[in-house]
């Protein structure tokens, strides 16, 4: 490596090609912080209202979830929390799985898994929001 700086036929640009992006290095770390900060109020809201979120009476639970601010907060929570989880699991895979095939397969599965999970959860939340919106406004 030491001789490559002066004796190589390769240009400096040629040597760094394939060694990673020059600008995206902090993006993963940064997004984990951005989603983390966003989750302070979002997760805090659902922790504080956990009794309403898992209410054993069906109509009470739907009434809570179908309030427009709650439906929107839940979608934002799902987006941030699942993205945050996806980033975290990616770091763990990169830390502990070293085989190229195993690592890349798991990283890809991780992407598919959390994208599918996000779509499923948002779909369900929207269904509740649309189906019970009138019910929520009539009762509340």
């Amino acid at each position, binding site marked *: 490596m030491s001789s490559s700086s002066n004796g190589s036929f390769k240009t400096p640009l040629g040597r760094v090609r394939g060694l990673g992006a020059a600008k995206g290095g902090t993006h993963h770390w940064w997004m984990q912080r951005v989603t*983390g900060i966003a989750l302070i109020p979002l997760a805090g809201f659902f*922790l504080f209202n956990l*009794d309403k979120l898992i*209410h*054993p009476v*069906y109509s009470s639970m739907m009434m809570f979830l179908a309030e427009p601010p709650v439906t929107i907060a839940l979608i934002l929570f799902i987006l941030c929390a699942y993205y945050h989880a996806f980033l975290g699991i990616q770091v763990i895979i990169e830390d502990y799985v070293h085989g190229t095939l195993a690592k890349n397969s798991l990283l890809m599965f991780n992407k598919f898994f959390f994208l599918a*999970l996000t779509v499923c*959860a948002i779909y369900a939340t929207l269904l509740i929001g649309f189906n019970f919106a009138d019910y929520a406004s009539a009762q509340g």
Partner: protein
Amino acid sequence: MSNNNRPLSPHLQIYRWEITMFLSIMHRLSGVALAVGALFFTVWLMTTLRGGPAFTLFYTFAKTPVGILICFLWLLAFVFHYLNGIRHLFWDFGSGINPRAAKLSGWFVLIGSFVATTIIWNMARGVYAVAAG
């Protein structure tokens, strides 16, 4: 390319146990638990909106000893990851990042998560008492 003489990173069997390393491990562990929990949360959200037996299935399970244990540990993991995450954010801003402050904030987070979990747990359980009675 590979060099076997490179220094090892902090090692579980070499270093004496400290609260800071315990919480660091627990942060990752609770994160994995919550990622698994996200799957169950999604399934719960999708089945719950149908009402009927799918809606009551969760509550039947949540009443069993195993269900209570899982629900409590899930809540504990959530609250702990929440508080310890805020501790990490303070470090990212360069605040409290010395051994003394890190140990102190560590104990604060550890005790705080048990206190907050107990409060939220009892608050959520109060709803069940009302629904049953």
